[in-house]
């Protein structure tokens, strides 16, 4: 896959675009099984990320990831903010000094991210959280010979769809118990947008 520093930047800028386009959709999902702010939260966070990355010049991958992590950490709040921040921060530590991110390095990063989210959120797969998407993508990248953009997008999409049939046991959606079944998890939906944006960047390279 071999992502350059510029690819990483493009990825996160594209994510911002996608999040903005889907703000109302994310909010609607969160109104059904949460408190209806996920769209607002994500837009606030990625808007700031774009502001930070756009004018900046980066030499290495980890610098991009770290700025993303710290910006998300200080601008989102809620449950999703520190979890996204933790994901990127843990990833940062695995990418020190890299100028390109190959598939192996990517897999190390997503593994660290998944571990970070799980530890911070005291959650695991099957609890109907953003972990579904991150874990599925990580698994794919770690186990594939040569992963394609299409595969990443597929994995994220399917994991998001799968969240629909789960009963939430973590986060605000857990208060709805079995009534949470039948609704896509908002955090899965935003993570899905993130990996869709990645797939688009990769497609440009493929």
């Amino acid at each position: 896959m071999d992502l350059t520093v510029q690819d990483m930047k493009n990825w996160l800028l594209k994510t911002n675009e996608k999040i903005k386009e889907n703000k109302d959709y994310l909010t609607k999902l969160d109104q059904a099984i949460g408190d209806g702010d996920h769209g607002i939260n994500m837009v606030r966070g990625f808007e700031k990320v774009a502001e930070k990355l756009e004018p900046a010049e980066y030499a290495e991958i980890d610098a991009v990831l770290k700025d993303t992590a710290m910006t998300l950490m200080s601008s989102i709040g809620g449950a999703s903010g520190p979890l996204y921040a933790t994901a990127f921060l843990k990833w940062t530590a695995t990418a020190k000094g890299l100028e390109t991110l190959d598939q192996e390095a990517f897999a190390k990063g997503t593994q660290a991210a998944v571990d970070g989210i799980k530890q911070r959120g005291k959650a695991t797969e099957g609890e109907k959280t953003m972990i579904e998407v991150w874990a599925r993508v990580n698994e794919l990248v770690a186990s594939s010979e040569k992963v394609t953009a299409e595969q990443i997008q597929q994995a994220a999409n399917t994991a998001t769809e799968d969240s629909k049939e789960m009963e939430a046991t973590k986060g605000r959606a857990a208060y709805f118990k079995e009534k949470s079944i039948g609704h896509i998890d908002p955090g899965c939906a935003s993570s899905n947008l993130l990996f869709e944006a990645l797939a688009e960047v990769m497609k440009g390279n493929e």
Partner: protein
Amino acid sequence: MKKIINDPNQVVNDMLAGYTAAYPDEVKQLPDTTVITKKNAPVQHKVGIVSGGGSGHEPAHAGYVGKGMLDAAVAGEVFTSPTPDQVLEAIKAVDAGKGVLLVIKNYSGDVINFDMAKEMAEAEGIEVESVVVKDDVAIENIEDRRGIAGTILVHKVAGAKAEEGATLQEVKATAEKTITNVRSMGIALDSCIVPAAGTPSFELKENEMEVGIGIHGEPGIERKEISSADAIAEELLDTVLQDMDFTGEVAVMVNGMGSTPEMELFIVNKKVQAILADKNIHAYKTLVGEYMTSLEMTGCSITVLKLDDELKRLLDAPSFAPAFRNE
């Protein structure tokens, strides 16, 4: 959406500016943060108490900053937990070397952000402990319970204990004891509108109410036909009282969710006191008013805290926080 605001995305900043302007001698806002601290923070020779959470719960949390209660309150966006860097600023601003206690409400967001801040502060060499309030009996599993109006009593007790010069561990232990002994539950007759969202969090028919609501405009556990004040008081209080043995002395709080007139809260309190008396539970202290709100939500919650001599002393101790003045 009919609100007296300017930019929906600036409500928190505007509010905080208006708050410090109202109490310029008592509090200050840390520059470039959403943190309100005592004017004279850090207060020497005492443990610092920090609380906070999403905005929209006013007077929580800034209203409880003052001698005898909180040293700092951290405001997030409306109904959204504040970020760790903001909480860290609060911790740093109130630590006088005796450590800092964080009072957290049990929501994923609050717990995660405050935990991160705690780790960051510890990395800077500050001693930090935290307690998590989970008083909402609408949720069955005790570990999953939300923190609602009972949080205010934890603020009061922890603040008074710190004021007595107790150590961080002692303050924490007393706060934990309070949490173990406090239970709440609420209902809503109408939802509320987050300014940046512009639409109600949920919709109720003219004859419906939500039972077992949280404080973020989330729907409740059950939707029912609206009943009388007496029936509402009975349903809420019975559920609370069944959850643990309250025999003895208690503090009871009838809390308004935002729009409900004080008249109605006192009407509820009439029945609450009758039920308590009937069950031989003595209301040592009664609080009626808006302590933990959800913007302009219509509804109320009832909180009961079982008391021992220490909790009585700490509840009675002076407090100078604008939203909780004692003596």
